[in-house]
């Protein structure tokens, strides 16, 4: 990258908004998925939409690939820099611009932290429903890119359910507004396409969110089972009884041990632990909680506890939310996997995971959003032992194949990113992927916005004949033209 371009970037974002020193760039060489690392040429920290536009215009003119980054907590390498590209960090754009409670809308910049939205509206008893485990550090912009979920999306839906409008800088630097404060703006639902597109369609610079009134009461039940099969049967029982809990989470014995070691939530020591949360009107929740309890007992629950106080409830959740990080207590290294299965396939898939784990000689801890079939197997290994890292990666991909064979998905909330793009062709056919890429070409014909992610083979868009300039990806043989 030439000096004049650096100068131009510096002119746009100011000297403090441009990072070029090797030492500082290291901070940005990976996101939450640390086994992929690429050093960007520069990191830019714009503080306004106009600056984002100007930076992107330069990238467009000079054909420089860019990757937008929020807090960098993603677990699939979505914010991994691209070779010879720049990173655009939205960390400085972190203002809550408008709180409109009569319409339950909050307008934010992309760098706002997820939990800060809830904190802002909590005094009026509203909350922002999508709650990924990283909610105290992850950004709304990143949530939009990944269509983040969380434990409570079983009842409340994902990020896409709660984003009503976006201001987006397209990969040519132009500005568009998708959706808005009102529902059903005339035209295509490009808002729906943008959310979850993992930074491949442009950069969101302003986000209109829907917040939700807090329910009258929330009750959390903890039930211990001999194993995950019994716990799984209880989940099916709860769903079959026509209930829609706010959350149903499951942990296996290894995950319980790790959580206990890390944050001491005082979980019962058992083979399968279920955490069921109901919310709504008091009368209703009390009645339904009794049914949940009965269903758990019918399915061989050995111990049932109801969190009595808010403090107890938070402690129960703390153990669950810390479960990934807690693995560090029982294993030097681990891979967090994210697959989805139809809930009914749980017993079969668990049996198979156990078998695969034994075959590979590696331990697998399991944490699930059991209500919607979203599995988070954690493959434990030791990098110091030769061959274990590769074996762990292979095992984690085999688990995903298991999910696909059961009719599920390779990712429920962490995204495809860099990590799983090769799995995409196992889940989708060529025509399926080509159709998605045609949509991508409408947004980003030059393939500049996070170009190497999501798709196994980035397709170049064959814009107008005569304007042909070989794309850097084409030259290096990782993309083909269609």
């Amino acid at each position, binding site marked *: 990258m030439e000096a004049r371009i650096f100068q131009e970037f510096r002119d746009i974002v100011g000297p403090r908004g441009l990072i070029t020193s090797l030492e500082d760039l290291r901070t940005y060489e990976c996101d939450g998925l640390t086994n992929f690392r690429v050093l960007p040429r520069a990191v830019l920290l714009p503080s306004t939409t106009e600056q984002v536009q100007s930076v992107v215009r330069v990238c467009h003119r000079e054909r420089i690939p860019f990757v937008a980054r929020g807090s960098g907590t993603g677990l699939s390498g979505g914010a991994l820099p691209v070779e010879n590209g720049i990173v655009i960090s939205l960390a400085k754009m972190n203002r809550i611009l408008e709180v409109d409670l009569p*319409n*339950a*809308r909050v307008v934010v910049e992309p760098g706002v932290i997820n939990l800060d939205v809830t904190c802002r509206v909590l005094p009026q008893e509203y909350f922002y429903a999508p709650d990924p485990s990283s909610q105290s550090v992850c950004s709304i912009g990143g949530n939009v890119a990944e269509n983040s979920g969380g434990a409570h999306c079983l009842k409340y839906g994902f990020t*896409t*359910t709660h984003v009503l409008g976006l201001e987006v800088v*397209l990969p040519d630097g132009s500005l*568009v507004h*998708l959706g808005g404060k*009102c*529902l*059903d*703006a*005339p*035209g*295509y*639902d*490009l*808002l*729906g*396409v943008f*959310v*979850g597109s993992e930074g491949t369609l442009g950069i969101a610079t302003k986000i209109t969110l829907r917040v939700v*009134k*807090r*329910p*009258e009461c929330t009750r959390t039940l903890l039930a211990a089972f001999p194993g995950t099969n019994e716990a799984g049967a209880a989940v099916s029982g709860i769903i*079959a009884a*026509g*209930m*829609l809990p706010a959350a149903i989470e499951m942990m296996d014995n290894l995950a319980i041990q790790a959580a206990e070691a890390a944050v001491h939530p005082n979980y019962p020591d058992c083979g399968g632990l279920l955490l069921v949360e109901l919310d709504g*009107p008091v*009368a*209703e929740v009390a*009645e339904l909680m009794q049914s949940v309890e009965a269903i758990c007992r019918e399915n061989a629950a050995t111990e049932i506890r109801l969190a009595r106080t808010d403090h107890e409830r938070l402690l129960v959740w703390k153990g669950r939310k810390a479960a990934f990080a807690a693995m560090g207590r029982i294993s030097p290294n681990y891979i967090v996997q994210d697959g*989805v*299965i*139809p809930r*009914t396939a749980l017993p079969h898939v668990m049996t198979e995971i156990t078998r695969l784990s034994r075959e590979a000689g590696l331990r697998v801890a399991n944490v699930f959003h059991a209500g*919607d*079939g979203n599995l988070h197997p954690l493959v434990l290994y030791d990098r110091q032992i030769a061959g274990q890292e590769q074996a762990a990666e292979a095992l984690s991909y085999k688990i995903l194949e298991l999910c696909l064979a059961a*009719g*599920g*998905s390779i990712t*429920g*909330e962490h995204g*495809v990113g860099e990590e*799983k793009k090769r799995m995409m062709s196992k*889940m*989708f*056919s060529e*025509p*399926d*992927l*080509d*159709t998605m890429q*045609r*949509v991508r070409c*409408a*947004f980003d014909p030059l393939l500049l916005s996070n170009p190497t992610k*999501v798709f196994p083979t980035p397709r170049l868009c064959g814009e107008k004949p005569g304007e042909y300039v070989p794309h850097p990806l084409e030259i290096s043989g990782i993309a083909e033209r269609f």
Partner: protein
Amino acid sequence: MLETNTILEELTAIVGPANLRAAAREDAVCGVAPQFIVEPQTEQHLAAVLSRVSAAGIAAIPRGGGTKLDWGNPPKRAGIILSTARLNHIVEHAWADLTVTVEAGCTLHSLQSTLAKRGQRLAFDGLWPERATIGGALSTNDSGSLRLRFGALRDLIIGVTLALPDGTLASSGGKVVKNVAGYDLPKLAAGAFGTLGVITRAVFRLHPLCRTTRTVTFTSASWGDMQQKLHAIQDSKLAHSGFQIRGHSGGPPHADLLFEATESGLAAQTELLQKLLLSESRGSSIPPSIFVDSSPQIWQARQNLFSTRQKESVIARFSVLPSDLAKAMRWLDPFHSSSHANWQAVVQATGIGFLRLDADPSELPAQIFALREQFERAAGSLVLLRRPESLGSLDAWGNPGDALPLMRAVKLRLDPQSTLNPGRFVGGI
């Protein structure tokens, strides 16, 4: 256009002679007459037909039950009607997983009856369920009262298969409720008016049917008062599933709330609502009139707007912020200034309203323009659904905003020949 018998022969060869017939007078779409009706029996046949007509430059108008075919702008061309009537199977009701895979031509009623056998439903109260199809409801982004609680079809759909004009059959999403692999094309297909591809099948997440429900109705003296109550209710701990407000040019508005809960839950909720309405009316000389068990028929109000004998009625869908509702209803004042002009509306608490305007057709275009401008200035929209043929040249959509070039680019990538529903969507798409 289709005189070239070769194309006709080829289409017949694809779908069989029983599934292709000449169009009749009632098959016209907003006054534009198609030549043939093609009813493929498989999605592969449908894709093959689409690809063949597209290559020949013939326009295709996708049709499900035909109940909303007069919505949108008149097509610029109408070569064939591509009907999903025979693609009407429920492929899989995975009841234990609360999902269903259904072909586009299945009627809402038929789908709901099957789901109800397992105590489940698609949480969507669409128009004309006996005849309207899943594909049509999706494409037109129809939504009723349950949207408040369960979201629109865009929020309930988890997978889609689209037939594209080049013959591609492309799926996206999947069969599990939680899935972020790849782009969310089900949402792109929802509300696209069949201009990007023909939806051949869809997968939905389901909800349990509620055994006990109750509808509570109350009246407000004015729209201003109603808006206050709307806000108080939305800001309360009530857990209602539906909330509609009915009104017309000659009287005060009525509101209906749908509760779905256990018996004891219903009792508690009703009590809470009564208390809330009483406290909201404190200081007013007229106590609120509350009817605690309204007939479920009251939820037909939206559909009833459409059943008018008046040929000159216009039906529109608008969207405003809930806090602008009372103001928006004042924008309708010109529609009851004279004795033969009036309006009726059913507004959801989400800010989406359905409106029937009866007025002098010669004045309507100017009035609608003025009305639309007010909605758009308030960040909302006004979309014409049904109108007399004399108003056919009036744009149905209004301003699609600064994303129109992007919408055109998407259209160009998926339907470059403009085979599907040409001219029916926003900005001439």
